């Protein structure tokens, strides 16, 4: 037997001079009660379901109801995606989430020259109400909640959804779901914008107002940090910019005369789940606490629901590797665990093949099963906020909050988020963070298994989903047939009404958009009118 020669009084040499989170935040060797001396249970944490909601917005959390398992899906034609939605529902998915192809997100019809090569590739091709009818065929909209990832044309796609509900005879008051509808993070990070900030913000405020009145269970926005993180931000930047985007939307809605407690309960959030387990859990906990404070102290909300931050989570696409793709299953599982330990309301788990293409059915099923294993096998759902009181986690949570207030001060000083975007501030912060991370990976200060360490030569390729150009031909044929068979006089009349409403700029746009949609005006035709009236956004060069 080997003799134990370790001397307990002598410090072992550590593997590195400094240890940091994936965001580059220094981490100490040990956390003790000293690190959380400033923590006050009632003020900083509170029981779950009680302000400031750090520990969760519901007292029972997953003991009463699990999070919604909502896999983001969309590819090819509406019929292709309809089949995938049915497949996922048959395998125990509990909510729907639709991915649209880029022409739809950019307000172009499938036969527009800019759509060439893009049809059905990044999501499902939707040109008109006719496509959305096919997409939800056999899916009763009063029995499922649906999330639609659409931003610049969100009001149009939501109108199409409302029109499908009418056809199914479903009362709008029974509809549950979310439109992403978050244009600020598009300017900041994902860059799928169409119109300039002012008219874009008006369209969003119009949806807040319309939803409050007619579709009261609908989340009219999902204020998103996901894309900010994917663009390379740190966890803190993701949190701070996202919550501050929330502040900006509230300012604009109040400016339009809306009462905060009417619309704020329907604001929802969307965060990323990256690899660093504790940093991510701290981020979600700090998010709830900061938002509670923003709502009650900055905006003086009275309705408790206004100050309860509800959020969706998606695991980090940017953390996945094309190399040894099966390893991604493990990354996704750990990221999903962070989201659950952080108290998410719904979750999308990425598929192992997403750095290569849209997921195959097999890969999508493994991703869904990952959530089911966490929910039913690991035991983490048995008690609420199980890591509370951890010296390390509570310190991280407090620091995350503090960093948030510091960013808020800087953004306030710039005159708000729209002004900061015009100056390029959040864009530059994110770009600097992403460059720093890339350099750290190239210097091997950060190890990515299979990429800069533990590399394998000659990996066998895996099966991936390919969308061929026959999808484009079919979609364009259907679109052109629609243009010939619909009542074009009615289309022209509704588009003219839309132009008048947009030009007047003092009425809610939703009723006119709904009329266009019901007449089977296409998304591209509606966006063309709005582009003519509103203009288009060009990113400032920095």
């Amino acid at each position, binding site marked *: 037997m080997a003799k134990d020669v370790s001397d307990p009084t002598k410090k072992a040499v550590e593997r590195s001079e400094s240890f940091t989170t994936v965001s580059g935040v220094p981490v100490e060797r040990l956390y003790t009660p000293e690190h959380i001396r400033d923590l006050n249970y009632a003020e900083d944490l509170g029981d779950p379901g009680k302000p400031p909601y750090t520990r969760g917005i519901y007292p029972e959390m997953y003991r009463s109801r699990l999070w919604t398992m909502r896999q983001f899906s969309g590819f090819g034609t509406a019929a292709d995606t309809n089949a995938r939605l049915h497949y996922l529902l048959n395998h125990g998915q509990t909510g729907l989430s639709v991915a649209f192809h880029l022409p739809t997100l950019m307000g172009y019809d499938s036969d527009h020259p800019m759509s060439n090569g893009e049809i059905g*590739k990044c999501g499902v091709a939707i040109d008109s109400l006719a496509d959305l009818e096919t997409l939800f065929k056999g899916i009763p909209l009063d029995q499922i909640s649906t999330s639609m990832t659409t931003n610049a044309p969100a009001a149009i796609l939501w109108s199409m959804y409302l029109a499908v509900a009418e056809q199914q005879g479903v009362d709008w008051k029974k509809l549950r779901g979310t439109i992403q509808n978050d244009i600020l993070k598009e300017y900041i990070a994902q860059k799928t914008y169409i119109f300039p900030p002012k008219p874009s913000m008006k369209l969003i405020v119009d949806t807040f107002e319309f939803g409050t009145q007619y579709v009261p269970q609908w989340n009219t926005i999902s204020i998103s940090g996901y894309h900010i993180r994917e663009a390379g931000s740190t966890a803190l930047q993701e949190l701070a910019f996202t919550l501050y985007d929330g502040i900006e939307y509230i300012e604009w809605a109040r400016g339009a005369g809306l009462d905060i407690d009417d619309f704020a309960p329907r604001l929802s959030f969307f965060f990323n789940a990256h690899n660093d387990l504790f940093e991510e859990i701290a981020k979600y906990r700090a998010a709830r606490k900061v938002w509670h404070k923003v709502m009650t102290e900055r905006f003086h909300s009275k309705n408790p629901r206004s100050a309860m931050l509800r959020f969706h989570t998606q695991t980090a696409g940017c953390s996945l590797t094309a190399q040894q793709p099966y390893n991604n299953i493990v990354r996704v599982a750990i990221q999903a665990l962070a989201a659950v330990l952080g108290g998410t309301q719904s979750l999308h788990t990425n598929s192992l093949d997403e750095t290569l*293409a849209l997921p195959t059915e097999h890969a999508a099923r493994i991703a869904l099963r990952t959530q089911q294993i966490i929910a039913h096998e690991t035991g983490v759902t048995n008690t609420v906020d199980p890591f509370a009181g951890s010296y390390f986690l509570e310190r991280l949570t407090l620091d995350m909050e503090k960093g948030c207030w510091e960013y808020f001060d800087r953004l306030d000083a710039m005159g708000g988020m729209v002004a900061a975007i015009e100056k390029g501030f959040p864009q530059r912060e994110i770009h600097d963070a992403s460059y720093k991370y890339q350099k750290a990976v190239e210097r091997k200060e950060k190890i990515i298994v299979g990429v800069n360490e533990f590399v394998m030569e000659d990996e066998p390729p895996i099966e991936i989903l390919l969308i061929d150009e026959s999808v484009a031909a079919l979609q364009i044929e259907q679109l052109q047939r629609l243009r010939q068979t619909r009542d074009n006089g009615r289309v022209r009349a509704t588009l003219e009404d839309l132009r008048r409403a947009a030009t007047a700029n003092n009425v809610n746009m939703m009723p006119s958009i709904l009329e266009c949609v019901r007449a089977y005006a296409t998304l591209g035709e509606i966006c063309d009118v709005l582009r003519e009236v509103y203009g288009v956004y060009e990113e400032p060069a920095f």
Partner: protein
Amino acid sequence: MDQKIRVIVAKPGLDGHDRGAKVVARAFRDAGFEVIYTGLRQTPEQIVNAALQEDADVVGLSVLSGAHMTLLPRITQLMKKERLDDVLVVVGGIIPDQDIPKLKESGVSAVFQPGASTEDIITYIRQNVRKK
């Protein structure tokens, strides 16, 4: 001393995922290249025009939308038409393995898939750029 290598960094296609393009552009600048970043959603015609105007040695293209098999051969075709045959075309983004031979056949010199290091891309360009 050699003249600076002039690189156009462009994003054809409709996606706005510019993280990779911007990181690579900055790494090129740090490596001493002269970089012209065209911005998002450039048509093949705009990109080739920029390459002509800027007298580029290299055209770096980033596509993550899945439209690469339509857009990239169109760019290389236009470049041939404009007699830009000696301009190096390198591509990054979400490009599946099976598409790489077809892209190379169309005139793309190299494809860098997710996980590629900026150092590797810079070294490749230095070794393969046209000699002035």
